[in-house]
């Protein structure tokens, strides 16, 4: 089971607070519209979810 950050794109304000706290550069802002997670790099630590002021990130699991 892999944990990863999942973004609610409609809610995201693309401020980039998440990109600044991610230690693995696994999250970036896609064309100024919303945050996008690189599932390969993300380890699901949840630091971005805690930082997000819009509450648009949650940690999900697959499998």
């Amino acid at each position, binding site marked *: 089971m892999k944990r990863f950050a999942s973004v609610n794109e409609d809610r995201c*304000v693309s401020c*980039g607070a998440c990109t600044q706290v991610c230690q693995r550069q696994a999250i970036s802002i896609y064309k100024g*519209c919303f945050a996008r997670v690189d599932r390969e790099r993300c380890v699901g630590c949840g630091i971005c979810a805690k930082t997000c*002021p*819009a*509450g648009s990130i949650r940690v999900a699991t697959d499998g």
Partner: protein
Amino acid sequence: MAKKVQHWYDYLWLWPIIYFVLGFFNILFAWLGMIDFMVPVLLALFGGNKLFCNRYCGRGLLLAKLGGEWKWSRNRATQEFLVAKWFRFGFLCFFMAMFGNMLWQTYLVAAQAQSLREVVTLLWMFKLPWAWAYTAGSSSAWVAQYAFGFYSVMLTSMLLGLVVMALFKPRTWCTFCPMGTMTQMICKMKK
């Protein structure tokens, strides 16, 4: 894990502090705030990105520093309405209306229909005397009027940013920052 490399823009949290100190002593420095208005819009229009918010916004970095590193934030979930689209766009419209009013006041002074008012208006209501920051005749009256108005806008929004930082997350201001809403709108239209 490797520590993140420090860049020059990681120190931009100093910018709002420098800005407010400069404007405290000489209001004409308030014009420098135009950078914070022009750069994000230009980056969004021509680059189709929010690099300003994401990397260069001094206010965002300062709020993250004070609220995050210094723990001046309660770090609670942002109130739902502050993230809602109606509030974000409503606040943008309100801010624009207030900005328009500021331009109108500047015009009135330029047209000599009104005299220069050496005050900084906080929260669109409270007039703080600020006359020490301007020497009469050191610029055209309208240039000074615009500076007083612009400084008022910057100080008011900074104050709001600090209040929501303390109450909610460090960068809660960013959820309804008019510049952020506007640039995201531009980026979405461009995509």
